[in-house]
């Protein structure tokens, strides 16, 4: 259980720019260390997406809960949030005395996030996708480009998934 929360603590520090940049890293850590099977990971990602709240926190809570109940869920969630909490504290203490160029930092983050999201996407795709799933994914991609609301896409694809499985 401590090993699990150590993973989320570490990944918390890397979680810049929205949850999707760290999902790939989480997959490597969780599936690579045998904590989740690839199928369980797929399920966890889907659950995290259809539940309110940030995807990465939801993943942390769910993984903790699945194996260790409520206590594991609390511990995991807090571990993942330790990094932002620590950094917010540092900012409060330093006040405006930091000399970081905001625009440059934003640019550097964007570049780094691009790499992380790319890694996430590849690791999501590597999960035994059948032709039908790939077809749905491509459809979902083009719908987001046309500014269809993501929730509509997520639940629409879920509904199609039900129809197809019956």
């Amino acid at each position, binding site marked *: 259980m401590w090993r699990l929360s150590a993973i989320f603590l570490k990944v918390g520090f890397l*979680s810049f720019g929205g949850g999707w940049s760290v999902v790939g890293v989480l997959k490597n850590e969780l599936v690579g260390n045998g904590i989740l099977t690839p199928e369980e990971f797929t399920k966890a990602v889907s659950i995290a997406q259809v539940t*309110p709240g940030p995807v*990465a926190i939801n993943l942390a809570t769910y993984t903790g809960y699945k194996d260790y109940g409520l206590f594991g869920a609390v511990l995991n969630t807090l571990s993942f949030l330790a990094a932002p909490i620590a950094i917010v504290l540092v900012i409060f203490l330093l006040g405006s005395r930091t000399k970081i160029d905001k625009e440059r930092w934003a640019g550097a983050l964007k570049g780094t996030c691009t*790499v992380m999201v*790319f890694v996430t996407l590849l690791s999501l795709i590597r999960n035994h996708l059948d032709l039908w799933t790939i077809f749905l994914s491509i459809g979902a991609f083009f719908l987001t480009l046309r500014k269809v609301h993501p929730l509509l896409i997520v639940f629409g*694809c879920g509904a199609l*998934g039900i129809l197809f499985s019956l």
Partner: protein
Amino acid sequence: MLHRLFFLFLKVSTLTLGGGYAMVPVMKWELERAKLLEEEEFLKILSVAQAIPGPIAFNTAVLVGKRLKGVAGAVISGLAVILPPFFAIVLVAEFINTFRESVALRGFLNGVYAAVVGLVASVLYQFVKSQKWSLRKTIMLATAAAVLLIKSSLVVPVVILLLVLLYSKGV
């Protein structure tokens, strides 16, 4: 004031499905409506929230809480954002456990997973589109991605190195 903050963030967090980025505009709207924070101030806080690690919705809430009501405000606001998803996950996990054998549930989750792959692809597309691409930057990012794909355990050093390089070169 503290309880107003708490219930405001609790409400936003409960009612917004679809991750942190969906939550931020709703937060902005609610804070302006409650006359707690002006737009300009909110955008300033948002830019800090984006520059530090952690879920954007959580960071924003904590910083807004701190700005309005000090440390107590920060703690209250942070809690209000994480409580609803926490209990939602616990409920859903129980529900899923009960219907583990259901073919329909599995179909639903597979469909959602397909949508997620599409959404992540479009997040990547937005990132790529919103940047200027010099040759040097392309090479740096491609090298980092290649290293991560070959040896994923190097993620911490690769991310730190990449951030430092990109920042110091200003690319």
